[in-house]
Structures are given as structure tokens and as C-alpha cells.
């Protein structure tokens, strides 16, 4: 089976976000594989181990993205592709990303494409579905279970806490939700092997694209930090009085009633 994983690097969940001049500072930030993409990598490896074939991890990013690709290779993926847009693309949005991937996948014969449900940074959840649409293949988002037999996938999908069971033919794109699996740590032998696994680097030029083809369809107007949470208030007195005060506060202060 020809399996592909779409992977993005995101800020480490431990990082503090600092906004200055309307931009998120990423100078000294530590990056990780987007945690939802980790489920995708893990699932891809498991499916390959069961059905044979090859796992290719694809990312769009810069030189530093190699680190996350190597991590995926160390976990057990076979090949990695870095589409480096550092020098060519100043701005991009989900359209640009989907467009690049669409072009990349044009001549690929993918049976299964896995992506994260969302990236924890911009959390649009769009790239997977958009790509599948452009490629004309089925997609299922937020999956928590995947069993493949022959050309058919049995899928469990998370629907706001409920489970929906879907049967779907390959080729297929799925986006992965927490609960699908428990991503493995890259083992030390895996880390040492990853050094020798193929990692191809492409630029948009190699895909016959230029910046105009990728011009974003959206504009980011403003980036700002959420307001700091104020300390809560504890009401005192008899329960009756407290209820009255609460209702009055909800009405007059919070204006939600």
C-alpha cells in the first residue's frame, strides 16, 4: 500500500506564545510534530506493518522542518519529502498549502493519505479535506479507528464524543483524532536508521509552481493574545441570597441573561 502522511511542524506545546509587532515570535521557539499529525504517522506505520507497502511523510516548511521529518523517519516512516517554501513564499494560507500538495500528489499513486485533524497552531482543519476534494478522492475527518481490508476501509469517526462507523473505498484521505492510537517514541535504533533514510527536498519551482499560483485567498488582519483570565469571585452568604446575587450579576454585569 502506498501511504502518505501530511505533517506540519508546530510550536512545542510547552512554548509560551509571544506576539510582537502583530507577529508571533518564533525565533527561539522549540518545534515539534503537530500532535495530531503524530497520530497520522503512527497509524501509517501500523497500516504499513499490517498490509505492507511504504510510508512517505510530506511536509511544507523550511530547512528546519527536516528535524520533524527525521523524527517521523525515526518512528518508522520510510521516506520523507520536504517542500521547502522558505525562499519562494512570503505568505501562504490553507489554499496555498492545499494547492502545493495537490500538485505534488498529481503524479503519485496514493492509496491512503493521513493527516492530523487540525494543526495546533492555526487549527483550520482545512488542508486535508481541501486536498482530497482537489484530488477527487473520499475523505473522512476526525477518525478514531481504521481497519483496511482489500480496497475498503472501515472507519470509526469521532462525532462530538459519539462514534460514527463508516465504510469507504480507497483511495482515501483521513484526518486523525486523539484516541486513534498511542504514538510510539522513536527508538534509538530508529533514530540511528533515520539518518540513512531518503529525505528529498523540493522547491515549488520543482512542482512547476510559482508564487502567483499560490497567492493566499485569505488575509490575516490581526494577531493578538487572548485576554488574561481575571480572578474568579466567590459569592458569600445564604444560598438564597447567593442565587439572587448570581442572577443579578449574570443579568447586569455579564449581560448573558
Amino acid at each position: 500500500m502506498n501511504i502518505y502522511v501530511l505533517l506540519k511542524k508546530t510550536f512545542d506545546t510547552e512554548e509560551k506564545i509571544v506576539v510582537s509587532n502583530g507577529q508571533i515570535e518564533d525565533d527561539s521557539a522549540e518545534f515539534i510534530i503537530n500532535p495530531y499529525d503524530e497520530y497520522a504517522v503512527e497509524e501509517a506505520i501500523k497500516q504499513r506493518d499490517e498490509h505492507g507497502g511504504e510510508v512517505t511523510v510530506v511536509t511544507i516548511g523550511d530547512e528546519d522542518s527536516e528535524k520533524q521529518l527525521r523524527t517521523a523517519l525515526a518512528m518508522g516512516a520510510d521516506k520523507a519529502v520536504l517542500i521547502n517554501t522558505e525562499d519562494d513564499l512570503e505568505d501562504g494560507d490553507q489554499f496555498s498549502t492545499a494547492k502545493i500538495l495537490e500538485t505534488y500528489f498529481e503524479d503519485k499513486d496514493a492509496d491512503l493519505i493521513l493527516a492530523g485533524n487540525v494543526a495546533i497552531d492555526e487549527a483550520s482543519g482545512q488542508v486535508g479535506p481541501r486536498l482530497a476534494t482537489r484530488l477527487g478522492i473520499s475523505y473522512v475527518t476526525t477518525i478514531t479507528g481504521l481497519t483496511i481490508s482489500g480496497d475498503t476501509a472501515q472507519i470509526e469517526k469521532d462525532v462530538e464524543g459519539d462514534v460514527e462507523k463508516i465504510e469507504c473505498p480507497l483511495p482515501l484521505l483521513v484526518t486523525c483524532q486523539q484516541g486513534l492510537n498511542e504514538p510510539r517514541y522513536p527508538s534509538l535504533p530508529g533514530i540511528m536508521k533515520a539518518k540513512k533514510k531518503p529525505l528529498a527536498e523540493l522547491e515549488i519551482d520543482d512542482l512547476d509552481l510559482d508564487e502567483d499560483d499560490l497567492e493566499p485567498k485569505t488575509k490575516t488582519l490581526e494577531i493578538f493574545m487572548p485576554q488574561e483570565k481575571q480572578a474568579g469571585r466567590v459569592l458569600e452568604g445564604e444560598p438564597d441570597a447567593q442565587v439572587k446575587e448570581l442572577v443579578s450579576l449574570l443579568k447586569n454585569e455579564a449581560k448573558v441573561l
Partner: protein
Amino acid sequence: MGETKESLFKGGAFLIEDLTGEDIITPEDFTDEHKMIAKTTEDFVVGDVLPKVDNLENHEFEHSVELLKKAGELGLLGADVPEEYGGLALDKISSSLITEKFARAGGFSITHGAHVGIGSLPIVFFGNDEQKEKYLPKLATGELLAAYALTEPSSGSDALGAKATAKLNEAGTHYILNGEKQWITNSAFADVFIVYAKIDGEHFSAFIVERDYPGVSTGPEEKKMGIKSSSTRTLVLEDAEVPVENLLGEKGRGHIIAFNILNVGRYKLAIGGVGGAKRALELAVGYTNQRKQFNTPISSFSLTKEKLGTMGAHTYANESAVYRTVGLFEQRMGSLTDEQLKDGREVARAIAEYQIECSMNKYMCTELLDFVADEAVQLHGGYGFMQEYEVERIYRDSRINRIFEGTNEINRLLVPGTLLKKAMKGELPLFEKATTLQEELMMMMPEEVGTETLEQEKYLVRNAKKMVLLGAGLAAQKYMQKIEQEQEILVNLADMVAEVYNMESAILRTEKAIQQSGEEKNNLKVLYTQVYVQEAFNRIEADAKETLIAVEEGDTLRMMLSSLRKLTRHTPTNVIAKKREIAAQIIEAEKYIV
């Protein structure tokens, strides 16, 4: 490696050589693979070990075994094992990073360390092919677990005074071992023990003893102050039957094995100390940011900053020093042929070259951990005394580090002792340097110190080296061979030498980092270095003075003290201000950063 470089890489050479940042290996040199190995270790510790800490602390050792096997699957037991025996044969930086990241697991890090270090390495270094073939592949996966049995009830520091005996049976097939080995880490579950005993009561030798051999048993679990997650019992040998082929190394040469393994144990404990200190600092700063008194987070008080700043600076200097030592192993092994690298003895020899560094790192880093753990508890106030807080366990776990693998006192005594031996053997021109120094000091004019970054620190470390030479030279002259009895002076010298190593390691690391990525990005490293060097210099000055006063008297003393004053003349750094700057960055990051 050219000839000139070779001299830089001699153990103890730092005392007389002038080095630059280029000459040493620093944490900034770690590769992506190193970082990935560290990350996997950390993920394993946080994800798998920490959830089991309470079970481990309650001596439910089935979890230790299970966790070690899982560590084995990840490759975390095979870093120092050669590839042909199922290991990964990683460089020493990789295995050090594993050790550092395991530190957070408290007592379980001792379990892991005893298995991969003192338990497995005797076979890696000194086993013959059959022994390696038989044991190493299973030790690397965790199928077999190892322990190390040297200490006895009546022989601790005096390890060669062991009473355990071995006697060849009449058929010549087995050694019959008798004796009691005390405080054996991993003894509840270890399958293989490296045991020292005297053949015929006189030839100190090492044996590979399997748990299932007739006559081998363990005593009850000890009740300890800390590292409760690790198993500690007595190993009892009652006519234990050990096949002759399980003699490790040569008959009567057990001390060579013990000596080499101690070096490894020491630098690994040092790395663990740095890892533990980083964790304690992280807990301390996290707590002080969140804890409010007088409506103010206590991290805003300048006394808290003073503590955090000192903890940070000490951690930096010790981290720089211990990875410099690991780098030295690598540099030295880099000069070995593949053939030599396959011979475990050569690797052990490469490490043994740096026994001075291993000992210094051991006492400095374990005292770093004790200091940082103590301050971390203090910063937690009463909560730090409560067992719900991790810092309480760190404090208890820390204490043993100053005792095992050679007490810090024994390690201190070894440092000047070994330096003097090297000098007498002509390996280090210490006496020549000391003689020229005494002449130089007579004529010495105050030196103008430049204002460039680190200029002052380099000046201080140069003079600190001279103070060591001055003290050591005078003491050696006066006491000659009897210097061994002047333990207070030896310990003063050991402290001075170790402070020099730490200071210089911090300076060189910072210098190298500035060369690599500029001063602006390394501002915190500069601050750490300035603070540490100033304070270490003050300590060295006090030790030097005390030493001179003990060794000399009358006019000579007055002359020597005046020489000392020439060496200590400088405009001191404002450490209070610098610590505030350091603390501001640590408080912002909520952890130790560089």
C-alpha cells in the same frame, strides 16, 4: 589528532594548558540525533516511568523490571554495548544524555544506571568473547538485568579490603564463593551480579555470578533515606558455585576492573547530578512564579532571584564541565583505530585517562545537586517539606550521591594525589611550572585587564591556575611523600582544581557559543559565566590563603601571601546585579535555559 592537540587532551592538562573554545566539546555541539535521543529518553521517563513512581517508591519492583524491558525495546539499555553484541555502540555524548534525562526518574535512574553502567560495563570492557556473547545481547534488551557487588559491611572506601573469598573446587570446574556484599542496587531482581572476591583469600578478582547459581541469595530490602524506588539488598554468597569461565578479566586483576568502572560510575553520577539540578530548578522557579505572598509572586522578590541566579550559574558551570569531560573521552577515542575501539579495555583506558576529571565532576556535580535541591525545597517553603511535592523526593534522593561511587572526600583526595603522581611520572610538567611560577611571582606586575567580554574571566582563571600551582608546589615541597597525611590541604587543592575546571569550562563554552552564534544570543551564558567565575574565584582565594597559612610561616608566609595578593587583584563583578538578570530570564522561561 596532531601532536600538539594530543597534549591538550591529556587528563589534568587543563591546569597548565591555555585552551580556547575550539578545543572543547560543549552542549551546543550536540547533533540533531543527540537531541532526538534525549527527547526519546525524556518522553519515556515522563510518559512511562513517572506515572509509576509511587509504585516504585513502594518497592513494587515488578514495575522496575517491566520498565527496564521497555527501555530495552527503545534502545535505552544498549548505548554503551557494541553492535556485534546487540547494542548500539553510541558515542559517549548520547549515553550521557540518556543518563541526564533519566535523572528525573529519581531512584529509578539509579536502577537504570546500575544496570547499564556498573552492571553491564565490566563485561563490555573486560569480558572475553564468550562472556560478551553470552551476556551482552540480553543485557542490552533487558532480558537479563545486572547489578554490581563490590561493597562489604567492613569495606567501603577501602574496597580492596574485601573479605569475600573464592576457591577453586577440586574438579577445577567452579570457584566456590563465600562472603557478603552490601547495599547492592537492583539486587531484588538482577539476574547477573558482578562480584568481587579474593581467590584463595589474596587475589582480588571479579566474577560474573548468576542469581540462579547454587549458594546465591539476597537479604531483605533495606530501608533507605532516599532513592527508595531502587532496590537495595545484601548479596549473600554461601558456597556459591561459579563456573570457572565466569572469572571476569584475569585472576588477581579485579582492582583494574573496579578502578575503571568507578571512573565510569563517577562521571555518570555527575551527569545525573546535572540532570537532577535542572529538574529541581524548574520546579523551584515554577513554584515561585505561581506562589503569591503579600499579593506578589515570590519570584519577584530579589532574594528569590538571588537564589535562582546562583542555582542557574552553578548548573551552567557544572554542565559545561561534565560535558567537556565526556567530550574528552570522545576526542581521545577519536584517535583510536576501529580495532582498538572494539577492545573494551582500550575504551576503558581512554576514560581512565580522565580519572581526575571524573572524580572532580563527581564531587562538584553531586554537590551541585544537593545545593540546588536544598534551595528548591527552601523556595517551596513548608510545601517543600510535604511529600506531595516532587521536590521533597528530589531532596532525599540527592543525598546518597555524595556518598556512593567513592565518597566525595575520597574523590577529593584522589585528585591532587593523581595530579602529583602524574607530575612525578613526568606526564604533566607541574613541578616545572610551579618553579617558574615562583620566580615569575617575585617580578610580577599587575596586569591590565581588557574590557572585552570574558577578558576578566579569562584573567581570573589564569590566576586561579597559578594559585593552584603555588599552593600545590609549596605543599609538595614541604611535605614531599608525606603529603598524603595532610588531607585538609589536599582537599583544599582538590576544591581549587575543580573550581578551575568548572570556571574554565564555562568560559570556553561561552566563548565557543559566541563564536558560533554571536554575543547577543548568548547573553545568558555570559552572565552565568561571569557570576560563576567571580564566586569560584573568591572560593579559590580563600582556599589558597588557608593552604599557604597551613604550609608556611614567618617571612616566607608573608612573602607568599603578598604573591597571592598580586594574583587576586581585580575589580570584582557585581554578582548581585548579574544574578537578577539571570533570574529574570529563568523566571520568564520557567526552567533552566542557556
